């Protein structure tokens, strides 16, 4: 790379590092909700992307309402709408769990079919409500700019924002899963539903809460991604494959795995994309994941115990 100055190379090195980091945070946020619903509960949630889209639309609605009724609140509405996104998605998630998912825990493969149906309905629902076209919430200016350190070196604020958000959500979820009573009950419930009830766990409530929580996190992700992506009926479906890859490569058993695999995939992808071209970079990343999974079939962090 003789044609560039050292300063340029340095800047690129930093920015490329950051773009890997921000891809990591995106993948992580994408995967977290699914890590709970799929990784922990075993529900193959094909509607995960649609819950993300719901989060994005929540931001859009909030943005419209703010512009109409409280324009002065404009710069801050975004934070509030992320909270809204969480609660709305969580509530819908709880409803879906109650109507649909709770009947299917004993045959997890069938959740694939049911949630696929659900995702069709939700997508069409968005289309009927918001139109087939993409919409764009007005994002606060402070979020869309960049810190410019030098002429070459700009660090996107939205990237930093997503990064911080995903770290927060991950930390909260980790605490919740591994330090709280609820997390323990959830892990017990997914391992053996009947026995959990027999030791005194209200499994119905645990399941509902967990599913709602997973959907809520998907909502947060969707809301956050309005800063970097589109808001349309099928915006969510663009994330689903990556989300599953992240969860699976991490090993479905642990959130830590999800963290590690998001990091690994992000770094692989941003490096490969830099040196190869777009499509090739993506293909190469996928191949790396597949080969990694072949070598470590149970993901990066297998939670396996001896079976009988």
């Amino acid at each position, binding site marked *: 790379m003789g044609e560039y100055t050292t300063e340029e190379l340095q800047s690129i090195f930093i920015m490329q590092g950051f773009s890997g980091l921000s891809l990591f945070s995106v993948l992580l946020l994408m995967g977290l909700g699914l890590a709970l619903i*799929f990784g922990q509960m075993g529900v*193959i949630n*094909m509607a995960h992307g649609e819950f993300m889209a719901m989060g994005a639309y929540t931001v859009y609605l909030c943005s419209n309402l703010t512009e109409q009724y409280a324009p002065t609140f404009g710069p801050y509405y975004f934070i509030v709408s992320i909270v809204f996104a969480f609660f709305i998605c969580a509530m819908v998630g709880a409803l879906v769990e109650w109507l*649909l998912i709770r*009947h*299917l825990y004993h*045959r997890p*493969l*069938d959740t*694939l*079919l*049911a949630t*696929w*149906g*659900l*995702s*069709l*309905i939700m*997508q*069409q*629902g968005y289309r*009927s409500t918001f139109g087939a076209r993409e919409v764009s919430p007005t994002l606060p200016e402070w979020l869309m700019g960049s810190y410019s350190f030098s002429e070459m070196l700009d660090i996107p604020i939205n990237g930093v924002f997503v990064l911080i958000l995903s770290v927060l959500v991950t930390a909260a979820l980790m605490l919740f899963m591994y330090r709280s009573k609820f997390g323990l009950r959830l892990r017990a419930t997914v391992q053996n539903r009947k026995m959990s009830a027999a030791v005194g766990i209200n499994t119905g409530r645990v399941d509902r809460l967990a599913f709602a929580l997973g959907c809520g996190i998907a909502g947060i992700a969707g809301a956050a991604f309005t800063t970097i992506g589109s808001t349309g009926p099928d915006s969510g479906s663009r994330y689903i*494959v990556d989300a*599953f*890859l992240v969860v*699976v490569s991490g090993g*479905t058993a642990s959130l830590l795995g999800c963290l590690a695999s998001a990091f690994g995939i992000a770094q692989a992808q941003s490096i490969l994309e830099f040196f190869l071209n777009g*499509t*090739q970079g*993506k*293909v190469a990343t*996928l*191949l790396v*994941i*597949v080969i990694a*999974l*072949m*070598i470590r*079939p*149970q*993901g990066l962090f297998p939670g396996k115990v001896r*079976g*009988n």
Partner: protein
Amino acid sequence: MNSRIFRTLFKTKAEAIAFLSFIVLVLIILPLALPVFRLNLVGKYLSFGFVAIGLVLLWGKCGVLSLGQGVFFGLGGYCMAMFLKLEASDPVSTAIQTTPGIPDFMDWNQITELPAFWEPFKSLPFTAAAVMIVPAIIAFIIGWALFKRRVGGVYFAIITQAMALIFSLGIDGNQGLTGGRNGITDLRTLWGWDIRTESAQQILYFVSCTLLFVCALGAKYITNTRLGRVLVAIRDREERVRFSGYDVAMVRTVIFTFAAILSGIGGAMFVLQVGFMSPSIVGIVPSIEMVIFTAVGGRLSVLGAILGCLIVNFGKTTFSEAYPDLWLYLMGSTFIAVVMFFPNGLAGILDKIPDLKTKIGNLVKRSSKPSTPPTAPTPISDEN
């Protein structure tokens, strides 16, 4: 028919009757009742049936969910399409190109010479073989690598899904060699025989359906031999099977390969009847849809799965014609309803009939005590 083979194929009389009625429906009633254009559509739907049969063995019986069957469907389809495209690209009809005699999309991509891997597809016998062998080889390699390492369950599902993504991206990214996102279009003749005419489509329909039934019978045969029972055993308790002395990895690989071959044939039949091949039928979504067809029909039943392909696609066509704005709601609700009310898919309805009968019988008899459990049929023996 030899009665032993017959009993290997069909466990009960009802099953045989159901199968036979389906054959009558597909090969006699539909051709008489439908205009050729609709019949051709049915043929297209049924070409997914090949994939569904494979999924019954692989997923329903053996418990291995592949979300990448579209890849094999695609491989078979692309092999066939390459042959047809070469035939459609003779120097005369491609005279306006910079390089006449090569497929049009290659010309658009400044390719001036037929790539070497296209050459063999000038031969029909080679193509026919490749339709099965190419998917088989790829499936065998992938299957062996994964099953040997005991990759199973969701890991297998997601790896195969990634494979589907890789495959469709690979096609997109190599437009000059594959036709990219447009696919390979404008296929016309098979050894000079115009496959676009009504009579050709009718003939292709019969050929495709007959092949489908042959494959279905083959699959049924497998499920009712010991191999079929081993599959179920692997699904239930892989470890135990290993300790009964079976090579589980090999069994799975063989079934995966077999399913891939079936998918390849399906792909080829699809191309012949639809007249083009495109990456939009081989990626992630179509691969999942094929699983959906199977699940709706019933992943434990060969006939059910085929029926699933037919019904879901038929529903898609008619719903979307009748309610262009609402059809997705209908499809979505249908899938959910099937899951909730027919755990074994539509084929499960058939299983429920005896249940209902006894229930009704009980009502009639007004007996308060439940009857003893229905005794299962005695295993078929070869003693006589």
